């Protein structure tokens, strides 16, 4: 270890860990707690739910919240709202997760390729990204639903496609900065393959940008997916999905508002939690990304 490096290490106090930095901000701590709780509820829905999501009891149709045995009431088919919400959360979060995973993954690959082979891939890839960005997500959703028919598959595909160009931009920007650093040149000099160079040396340094964007995007994707399902283009009844539940409840708004309002509130909480957490992660991980 060189003397200067040693001196730098002594002078630099240990930075607090990511979790500690996140928890300092009350809003961020609360959102982290909420996200963990929501993920837990979604994953363990079959264990937590008091009934089956398709079990309907016609004696309980449109029971308001607080009725005996039904803390959040029952829907128009007499199904327990708590159960429906738990399963709805599960379906909605899973749709969002798959979309961010696929769209974000493909986008990240494009971004890395554009930055790494800047000379001959950056132009074409970024043109492609520009073209994809000229279609707002809602139009992508409408077009895909028109081609493949309404359904969960169409929505997930649309959300993935709409995520690709955004992630590609973020990753390219972040990777271009890393590419200018000396250690990439040094690694290249050792003669490793491009693939290994990207995977082992370039990608890890872009992870925080990817992670921050994925978190923020997750909230947007959930919001958009629920909107498409609300329009009838996504999950079809009787599948419990939060947007579709709100859409079903809309028909009974004047008799039993809770059927529509409760799923809406849950969507709001989910999106809000991910948005706040994403902002906080950005501030904690990479202040340069602050917009």
């Amino acid at each position, binding site marked *: 270890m060189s003397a200067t490096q040693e001196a730098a290490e002594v002078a630099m106090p240990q930075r607090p860990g990511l979790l500690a930095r996140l928890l300092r901000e009350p809003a961020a701590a609360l959102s982290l707690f909420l996200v963990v709780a929501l993920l837990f509820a979604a994953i363990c829905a079959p264990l937590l739910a008091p009934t089956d999501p398709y079990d309907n009891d016609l004696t309980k149709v449109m029971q308001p919240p607080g009725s005996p045995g039904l803390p959040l009431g029952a829907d128009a088919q007499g199904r327990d709202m708590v159960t429906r919400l738990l399963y709805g959360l599960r379906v909605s979060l899973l749709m969002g997760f798959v979309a961010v995973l696929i769209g974000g993954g493909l986008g990240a690959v494009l971004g890395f390729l554009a930055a790494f082979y800047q000379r001959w891939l950056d132009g074409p890839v970024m043109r492609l990204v520009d073209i994809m960005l000229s279609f707002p997500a809602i139009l992508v959703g409408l077009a895909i639903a028109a081609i493949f028919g309404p359904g969960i598959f169409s929505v997930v595909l649309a959300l993935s496609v709409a995520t690709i160009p955004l992630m590609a931009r973020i990753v390219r920007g972040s990777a271009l900065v890393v590419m200018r650093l000396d250690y990439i040149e040094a690694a290249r000099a050792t003669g490793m393959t491009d693939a290994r160079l990207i995977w082992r040396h370039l990608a890890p340094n872009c992870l925080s940008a990817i992670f921050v964007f994925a978190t923020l995007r997750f909230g947007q994707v959930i919001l958009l997916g629920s909107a498409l399902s609300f329009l009838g283009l996504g999950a079809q009844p009787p599948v419990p999905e939060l947007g579709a539940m709100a859409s079903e409840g809309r028909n009974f708004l004047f008799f039993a508002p809770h059927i529509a309002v409760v799923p809406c509130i849950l*969507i709001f909480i989910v999106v809000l939690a991910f948005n706040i957490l994403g902002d906080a992660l950005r501030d904690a991980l990479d202040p340069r990304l602050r917009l």
Partner: protein
Amino acid sequence: MLRHALHRIMLAFPVMFGVLLIGFLLMQVVPTDPATVRAGPTATPDVIAAIRADLGLDAPLHHQFALYMGRLVQGDLGVSIINNVPVTQELSATIGPTLELMAASLFWSIPLGILLGTLAAYWRGSLMDRCIMAVSVAGVSVPVFFLGLLLIWFVGFKWQLLPFTGRGGPLWTIDGIRAIILPAITLGGVFIGPVARMTRTAVLDVLTADHVRTARAKGLPERLVVLRHALRNALVPVITLIGLQIGFLLGGAVVTETVFAWPGVGRLAVGAILSSDFPMAQGTIIVLSLGFIVVNLVVDVLYAALDPRIREA
């Protein structure tokens, strides 16, 4: 300036071509055969074949594409499978209400968003800043339909203050104004958050700039420093960013139109997709996409016209 504009226009052409190509392919992959539909359920195979030939459906794909482009240029987007009305006729009846709704939403949400963003930036870190930013995060997290349903339930149904289904008539009539209030509040409501946020960032940037310090140093009243020197310079990026959010606004408009039964293009598109009315779906998607591309192009060129730094970059 002119070169930049030309460059952007040249770039927009392949994108528009892509839209038309996707629209064409959309009709190729849908499960229904237009000739069978047009021939009706009792038609013999001979009749269907004749109609196929008549519509040019037996020609090779590139030939069909040329025919399709030719019809598009003449403003022929086909006929609805459901009610036999020309797609262009339905479109021209619905574009007005959609633009009306968007304009009414922007009319109140942009000024309010800019005001909130400026206040937040000026008193950065204060309680007011934190409150405004909290409202703005909540604004981008709330589902459009939630806002709409709440307004319908309280204002429309419980308090019986305003109508909540359909368009009341032209905007210069009382009924027209009353009918657009709730949809415009809904759509504008989700737009305030992004506008406030972008304004805050832009104003913060400008507030630390040299010319603002100079303005302060020469003793200008604070109000003038903020309004004339900071906000005015911040407005250029803000207006651009707002232009780039039109896609987001369009998404909100589709949902808002559905919630309030507003007779716009978004509702038409959703209805067409749900009823498998493919020509109508294709036409609405093509027109919405082209409109969006044109708006982006205009914003882009305007931005360069307003800010000389962009042109040189």
